[in-house]
Each structure stands twice: as structure tokens, then as C-alpha cells.
């Protein structure tokens, strides 16, 4: 975790401005921001270690994607799927790997293949259900 993030605690009772500014309504809430304070990911509640680690990788992947670093984003999403295939973050990471492929190659079939893989591997997860319509 420390390789990917710099962790800091915010007391909601004493740092009300930051709590309100980032619209945090409940604790614990984990918010990932970059050095400029731009939010890239968040989740509410404590998680088991592997789920937590997967969320850290997901946050880094999202940051890279949103900043247009699609090679890096793809590597991070694929790394998440490889290291944490049973976590809740894995299904959408399969999908976003395909989105990155599309961004990098403009080949729609790469995206469709990722959609099909997400639906096949994770049929009971919400991301598998979202993508089940892709032929």
C-alpha cells in the first residue's frame, strides 16, 4: 500500500472543511486523491486485506486512465486481475483493460472481447450482468 499511496487520517470532527469539501457523509470513508487534491476513487467501510489492496490498485489504474496514460492504466488493471482475481474490483478491471486496449488501438473487437470475458468469468457480479448483452 505504501508503494502506491501516502496514507493520512482525517478526523471528521476537527477537519470539518475537508470532510464537507469532499462530501464525506459517514466513516470510515477512504478517498484517493492526487497531489493536486483531485479525487480518483473512494469506498466506504473497512475491507479484508486483499479487497483493500485491490482497491488501491484500482485507484492507481483509474488515475492513470483519467490522465490519458492508457498503457499504464492497462498494466495496472491487468495486474489487479492477475493478483486479485476473486476480489470485487476484478470484474470491472477486466472490462477496463479492454477499454484501454480500445483507446490504444481503436480496435473495437478488443473491447468486445473484454466485455465477453467479464460476463463469462463473473456472471453473478454486477459488471458481468452489465456486459452480458454483448454478443
Amino acid at each position, binding site marked *: *500500500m*505504501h*508503494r*502506491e*499511496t*501516502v*496514507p*493520512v*487520517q*482525517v*478526523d*471528521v*470532527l476537527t*477537519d470539518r472543511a*475537508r*470532510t464537507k469539501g*469532499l462530501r*464525506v457523509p459517514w*466513516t*470510515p*470513508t*477512504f*478517498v*484517493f*486523491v*492526487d*497531489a493536486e*487534491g483531485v479525487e*480518483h476513487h473512494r469506498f466506504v467501510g473497512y475491507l479484508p*486485506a486483499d479487497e483493500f489492496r485491490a482497491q*488501491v490498485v484500482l*485507484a*492507481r489504474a483509474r*488515475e492513470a486512465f483519467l490522465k490519458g496514460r492508457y498503457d499504464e492504466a492497462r498494466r495496472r488493471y491487468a495486474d489487479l486481475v492477475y493478483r486479485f482475481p476473486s476480489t470485487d474490483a476484478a470484474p470491472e478491471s477486466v472490462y477496463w483493460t479492454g477499454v484501454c486496449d480500445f483507446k490504444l488501438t481503436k480496435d473495437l473487437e478488443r473491447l468486445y472481447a473484454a466485455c465477453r470475458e467479464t460476463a463469462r468469468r463473473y456472471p453473478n457480479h454486477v459488471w458481468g450482468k452489465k456486459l452480458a448483452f454483448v454478443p
Partner: protein
Amino acid sequence: MAIAWFPTVEAAQEAARATGRLVLLQFHSPH
């Protein structure tokens, strides 16, 4: 996993800027 919390958000942002990491804010209530 023992977490080494940074003392302030500002220090965390400085460290994030210097190392290319993200800041992980854990909002908590001590009560």
C-alpha cells in the same frame, strides 16, 4: 498490515507529489 500514517494532509500531498503516489485519506471519527 501496519500503516505509517502521515502527520498531516499537507505533508502527505507533498510526499505524493515528490513520489508520484496518490494520497489515501481515511476519514474517521475518534468516537
